[in-house]
């Protein structure tokens, strides 16, 4: 366990008598974007929370750069690992966009006040996610797409080098979804390790360096995106996948929707 990275080592997660994850091993490395795919209830979200240190494995362990994740304080963990869940209730009422992005700096705050460094990073995140015009608006008045950009800006301001996102595009229209995924790709190229749970297989194969398929609580496939066999992926997910060429690059569509 000396290699850099965020690694799950032969971990089980059981709740009551139900096994959610069984003997899972996975490693995230800096600079790569990993798409996690699988059927509903396969254990994708649980795997992400395990990596985020938000749940502890029943057996096995999670390591961050060879240190047991459980040994880190909540603040130390949050300095290294960012996490974004899909549905966010309740929505904080009355806070401005800037204030909510600033919450991402909690782990690095002195107890008394935010520092100048914090302000600059929050400004930078606002600029990067093009939220300048919304910065002083109450967050609860924003649309779903705008809110998602605020959460992404928060992840940016958090300065974590591991970023884990659970279905970040599920509430977004096509253009915001594309923009969001491009942002994640940019983060990976900038050196962050990004893991993202996606149901959009075309998007997963297009943006990810690696695709991990979770099937009934186990890692069924863990392959580079370009060498992944789409027919096996489709078979395991219960759909027929067709390959098409767009601008000379392989893309994947789910077949069977078009009436014959």
């Amino acid at each position: 366990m000396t290699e850099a990275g965020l690694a799950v080592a032969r971990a089980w997660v059981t709740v009551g008598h139900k096994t959610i994850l069984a003997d899972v091993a996975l490693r995230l490395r800096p600079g790569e974007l990993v798409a996690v795919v699988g059927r509903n209830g396969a254990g994708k979200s649980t795997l992400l929370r395990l990596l985020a240190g938000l749940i502890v494995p029943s057996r096995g362990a999670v390591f961050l750069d060879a240190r047991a994740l459980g040994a880190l304080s909540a603040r130390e963990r949050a300095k290294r690992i960012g996490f974004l869940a899909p549905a966010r209730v309740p929505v904080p009422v009355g806070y401005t966009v800037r204030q909510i992005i600033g919450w991402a700096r909690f782990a690095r705050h002195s107890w008394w006040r935010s520092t100048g460094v914090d302000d600059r990073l929050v400004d930078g995140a606002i600029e990067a996610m093009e939220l300048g015009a919304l910065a002083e608006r109450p967050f609860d008045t924003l649309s779903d797409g705008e809110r998602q950009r605020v959460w992404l800006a928060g992840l940016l301001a958090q300065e974590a080098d591991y970023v884990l996102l659970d279905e970040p595009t599920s509430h977004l229209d096509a253009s915001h979804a594309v923009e969001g995924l491009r942002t994640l790709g940019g983060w990976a190229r900038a050196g962050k390790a990004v893991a993202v749970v996606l149901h959009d297989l075309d998007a997963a194969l297009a943006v990810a360096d690696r695709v991990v398929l979770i099937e009934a609580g186990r890692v069924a496939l863990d392959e580079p995106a370009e060498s992944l066999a789409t027919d096996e992926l489709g078979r395991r997910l219960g759909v027929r996948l067709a390959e098409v060429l767009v601008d000379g690059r392989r893309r994947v569509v789910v077949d069977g929707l078009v009436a014959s």
Partner: protein
Amino acid sequence: MSVWALSRARARPAGHRTLAAGTALGLLLLSSVVLAVGFGRVAISPADQLTIIVDRLGGRPASIDPRIASILLDIRLPRVVLAAVTGAALAAAGAALQGLFRNPLADPYLVGVSSGASLGAVLTLTLGLSPVLYAAGAVQAAAFIGALVAVGLAMLFAQAGGRTSVPSLLLAGIAVAALGGAVTSYLLFFHGERIFAAFAWLLGGFNASDWPLVARVSLPAAVGLAGLVALGPSLDLLQLDEEAARARGLRVEAAKVATVGLASLVTAAAVSAAGLIAFVGLVAPHVVRLLVGPEHRRLLVLSAIGGAAFLVVADLVARVALSEGDLPVGVVTAAVGGPFFLALLWSRRGRLG
């Protein structure tokens, strides 16, 4: 760069608004103290107040009639300071619990504090202790302990799998309050001769104020207030779901326990000295939130200042409203706070969901 500049330019007025609101509330508190200390059967002008206080602090013999100096220093000032400390404590506790429960209707008495304090006080009053113990503050001590025991019980029953369930805490608080209320009623039913003393205590007031009492209340209140202000950023994060708060580095469980513990500490200190004073803890945070927004650090500090000013003025009204004796201050706060809160609700109708 232009986008960046725009957002910064807009950020500044928010800070200015906090400063302006803080200055205004601070001046309000100062002037209400000067007014309350000066008002009474013997009027004491602000200039005389200053002279008397400066003389005393400098250890000089009084240059103003010592009887007037004594009225100011031994009677009015401790009473006004106690009212201010109590108002600050109740308002800050209300702000913190509204944040924790994410509910604008939360008040400092929500988790059983009031019921526990009442039971402690009524138990002591109906026991028929020796007058020495009453003079030594037995009622206040019992109210303080009763309040903390009640909250402790509610917290105990809100535990679920190593974490504190906030909805369970709310329900457990209601159950504990009902139980305490039953025992209090039982005691009063069989000690009819003590009903007036108990009722007077429950309605609240500051006519038993002296400096030792101020000191006994101020110490826990100051500790609790400082702790709550330090918890401000944690209370902000608790507006998110618990998982999102944890992902940002918050120890959610510790923050919840600390919030309930500190809010109860300051409330117990306030209630033990002044009885159950309604509406300060509910109204003050709402007004301040309208002025500076929901961020908890500034909300807590400014609510404390505003609550202090409100209760100083309410006690002044309670003191001078009747030609003979005092009105219970709880009657004044409810009579002013109730209509005010209704007006606030009316003006914000449709926005509370």
